[in-house]
């Protein structure tokens, strides 16, 4: 049970680490390598490997190990980074993601031998790290010098090392550090027990051993320092280089030291006698596992655990070592946040009920009651916005996933493209982010598959070989706007139009503007690809994308310049929990119509209403005829109107750019409403998108404009094509 939850945490952390990894590699590929990014990437892989070891996920460990070694090459020498190598690393990151996923699901692990071999080959991992540096050095002569130097120059260091309590609490073990030091060269380790009181007065928190270590090594000072890299914050460390001379006092081996420690009086007899704080000893391995799992990445012992010494971290790595970040974020079950948001909605409702009551009771707004109520209102609003901000997340993770999509489509189609992100820190409600992933994936695929031309065509058109897909996110008037730019061929309007005519989507006589033709690709059943490719799906085209965007309460449009590329623009609400609604009354019931779908409101005059055929009514608005949807009868709550002189018309636009005139008795007002699902206790009801609770505690239904319109359209026999596209 316990292990399960730790395991769960590990995989949750993996997701973060993988995101870190991908972000890092992405930054390297776009901005070039810098040591901090490389380090963070390395740490991410290292942490994944470490945790995987704790859960005996062997496949994961072995791939992560190869990955880590490859990264180490770059970490040791940034000039080793190249475009093809980074690309390989990115692909490896994809594979790593798959392996982690497989491990999490306990499913058949992905076969990674191929990519692992590729990594080994590309980064010459068979070779010893030192030799490898040699192999890549362009000046062979200096190498010999270097080797000679390495052979002859032995440095001597005197290291004083006094761990603080954190070091043990974080699961580090001085013994492992000593082993690493011993791998560097001859070591003499002298414990200093002056700060350790006897057993009877032992204070676990403060009494620790410290050590003086003399090290004779070919390594440089910063390499020695690198051994302590992960524990720097948790110890007092002083490394002094001393003149090379004979190691006169080097008569103390680690074995002696270990014996020594076990002889110390405060150590319990049955303890093997390693750790200065014996009580911690048993816990150490457990703590190690946990701290790996918990993503504490300052753990050097992972390498020591792996058995043989890794290449000593390079000077560069040591120079810019980062302090372990103390994260101020907490991990909360999203259900708890949802519950909070629900309660917040309740509070908003109760508060408006209270306001109603207080006003009815005749309290003046300046009276103590009125003032207190005012205060409550302010608080409610503030709580509402902070609660909503809890769920707001940067859109970045979704964007990052798209870079994988681009890579996969590129390798499937033989095209070249790279992804550029802008505004990826824009925050959106998580519900929107979740819903966005699928349509975005589809659109990106589409952009690479259909938008970006083949390499030959691009070269012929004088463009760079690799296409560019740019994802831009921004806030704009209470919405989030996401744009997908590609610098491909743009939309072939003649082809789109003829295809649309072939498929009967538009009539041959219809005169369409360029923009209208572009937007035809969203029409149901439309697909421009000559053949259906694996990449962009089978027949489910952009209409599905448009539907899912509309399902999120958003809109999507395309604009295109032939030869230059296309831009898809999506605008989405910032949250799916609250909606800007127009409260209307008809058939003695209140309904909410999403403001996002409304264009204008007009007072109903019978002179503007005309009958077409036996029962279809249309509304004339500035020389345009708009079909009327009378909301009351449409929902079965009222009989058909006989008089069209009282009431209000709401002109609404549904997804396929067609307009409808919704007829209601009166408009009550515009307000933000909290969206409540009908499905949770009942079922989806035709024509109704969701429900909300009004200030008086009653429930109002939110109309599904899209569905009402399409239902209406289906009932109607094929209409003559108007100026609008169907």
């Amino acid at each position, binding site marked *: 049970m316990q292990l399960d939850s730790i395991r769960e945490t590990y995989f949750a952390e993996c997701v973060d680490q993988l995101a870190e990894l991908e972000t890092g590699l992405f930054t390297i590929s776009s901005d070039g390598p810098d040591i901090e990014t490389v380090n963070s990437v390395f740490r991410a892989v290292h942490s994944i490997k470490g945790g995987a070891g704790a859960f005996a996920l062997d496949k994961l460990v072995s791939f992560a190990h190869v990955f880590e070694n490859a990264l180490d090459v770059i970490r040791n020498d940034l000039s080793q980074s190249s475009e093809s190598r980074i690309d390989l690393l990115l692909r490896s990151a994809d594979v790593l993601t798959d392996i982690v996923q497989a491990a999490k699901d306990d499913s058949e692990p992905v076969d990674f031998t191929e990519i692992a071999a590729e990594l080994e080959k590309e980064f010459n991992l068979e070779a010893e790290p030192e030799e490898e540096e040699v192999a890549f050095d362009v000046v062979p002569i200096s190498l010999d010098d270097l080797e000679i130097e390495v052979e002859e120059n032995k440095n001597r260091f005197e290291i004083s090392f006094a761990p603080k309590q954190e070091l043990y609490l974080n699961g580090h073990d001085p013994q492992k550090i000593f082993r690493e030091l011993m791998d560097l060269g001859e070591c003499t380790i002298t414990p200093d027990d002056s700060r350790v009181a006897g057993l009877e007065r032992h204070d676990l928190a403060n009494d620790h051993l410290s050590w003086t270590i003399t090290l004779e090594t070919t390594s440089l000072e910063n390499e020695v320092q690198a051994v302590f890299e992960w524990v720097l914050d948790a110890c007092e460390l002083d490394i002094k280089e001393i003149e090379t001379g004979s190691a006169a006092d080097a008569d103390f081996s680690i074995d002696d030291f270990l014996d020594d420690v076990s002889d110390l009086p405060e150590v319990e007899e049955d303890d093997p006698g390693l750790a200065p704080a014996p009580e911690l000893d048993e816990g150490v391995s457990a703590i190690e596992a946990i701290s790996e799992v918990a993503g504490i990445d300052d753990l050097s012992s992972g390498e020591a655990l792996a058995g043989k010494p890794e290449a000593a971290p390079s000077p560069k790595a040591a120079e810019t070592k980062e302090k372990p970040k103390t994260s101020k974020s907490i991990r909360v079950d999203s259900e708890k946040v949802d519950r909070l948001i629900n309660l917040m909605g309740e509070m908003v409702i109760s508060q408006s009920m209270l306001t109603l009551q207080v006003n009815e009771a005749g309290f003046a707004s300046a009276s103590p009651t009125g003032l207190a109520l005012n205060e409550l209102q302010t608080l409610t609003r503030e709580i509402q916005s902070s609660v909503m901000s809890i769920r707001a997340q940067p859109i970045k993770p979704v964007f990052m996933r798209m870079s994988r999509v681009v890579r996969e489509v590129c390798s499937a189609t033989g095209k070249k493209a790279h992804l550029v992100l802008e505004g990826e820190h824009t925050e959106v409600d998580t519900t929107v982010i979740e819903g966005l992933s699928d349509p975005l994936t589809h659109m990106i695929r589409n952009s690479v598959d259909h938008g970006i031309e083949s390499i030959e065509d691009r070269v012929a058109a004088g463009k760079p070989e690799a296409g560019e897909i740019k994802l831009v996110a921004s806030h704009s008037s209470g919405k989030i706007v996401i744009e997908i730019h590609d610098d491909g061929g743009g939309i072939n309007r003649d082809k789109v139009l003829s295809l649309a005519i072939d498929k009967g989507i538009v009539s041959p006589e219809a005169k369409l503007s360029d923009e209208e033709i572009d937007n035809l690709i969203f029409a149901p059943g439309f697909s421009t690809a000559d053949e259906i490719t694996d990449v962009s799906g089978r027949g489910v085209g952009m209409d599905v994308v448009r539907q899912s965007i509309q399902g999120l309460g958003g809109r999507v449009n395309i604009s295109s310049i032939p030869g230059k590329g296309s831009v898809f623009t999506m605008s989405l609400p910032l949250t799916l929990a609250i909606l800007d609604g127009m409260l209307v009354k008809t058939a003695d*019931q209140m309904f909410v119509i999403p403001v996002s779908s409304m264009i204008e409101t007009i007072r109903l005059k019978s002179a503007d209403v005309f009958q077409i055929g036996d029962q279809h009514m249309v509304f004339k608005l500035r020389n345009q005829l708009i079909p009327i949807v009378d909301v009351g009868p449409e929902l*079965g709550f009222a009989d058909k109107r006989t008089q069209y002189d009282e009431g209000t018309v709401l002109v609404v636009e549904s997804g396929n750019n067609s307009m409808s005139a919704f007829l209601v008795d009166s408009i009550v007002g515009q307000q933000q409403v909290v969206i409540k699902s*009908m499905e949770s206790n009942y079922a989806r*009801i035709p*024509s*109704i998108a969701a429900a909300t609770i009004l200030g008086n*505690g009653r*429930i109002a*239904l939110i109309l599904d404009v899209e569905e009402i319109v399409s239902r209406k359209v289906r009932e109607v026999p094929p209409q003559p094509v108007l100026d609008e596209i169907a």
Partner: protein
Amino acid sequence: MSENNVEKEEFIVFRVGQQEFCVEITMTREIRGWTQSTTLPHSPSFLMGVINLRGTILPIVNLAKRLGLPYEEPTERHVIIVVQVEDKTFGMLVDSVSDILDVGTENLRSVPELDTKIAEDFFNRVIVLEDRIICEIIPDKLMPDMESLAA
């Protein structure tokens, strides 16, 4: 005797018109007074509509209508019994709650074979006491079939 104590089940008994019905007490969540409901379009007539139960949308089944009994317009004296079936919660509109009963197996009978579809569909067992009989409702069956509704 002690055997019977172990076997006892607890029911909440309520009145619809002249008859008494009951549900297992473990299925009920709460009992509350009637509040005005919001009618749903395209829904069966026995579904009164939905009410706000502390922020959740709670569908209400008019039990009298559902069982084909005569019914009157609900007033403030009517009662909603909130029941939970799996992960769905809904309310049953009844006239009043009359009793909470501990019933031993010796008083529980299976539903007699009747010539009515309703008995077969909605009743699980019958509690037979000295001077009254109480039909046990199967709440699962009260709500409209979700699939046919979506069609």
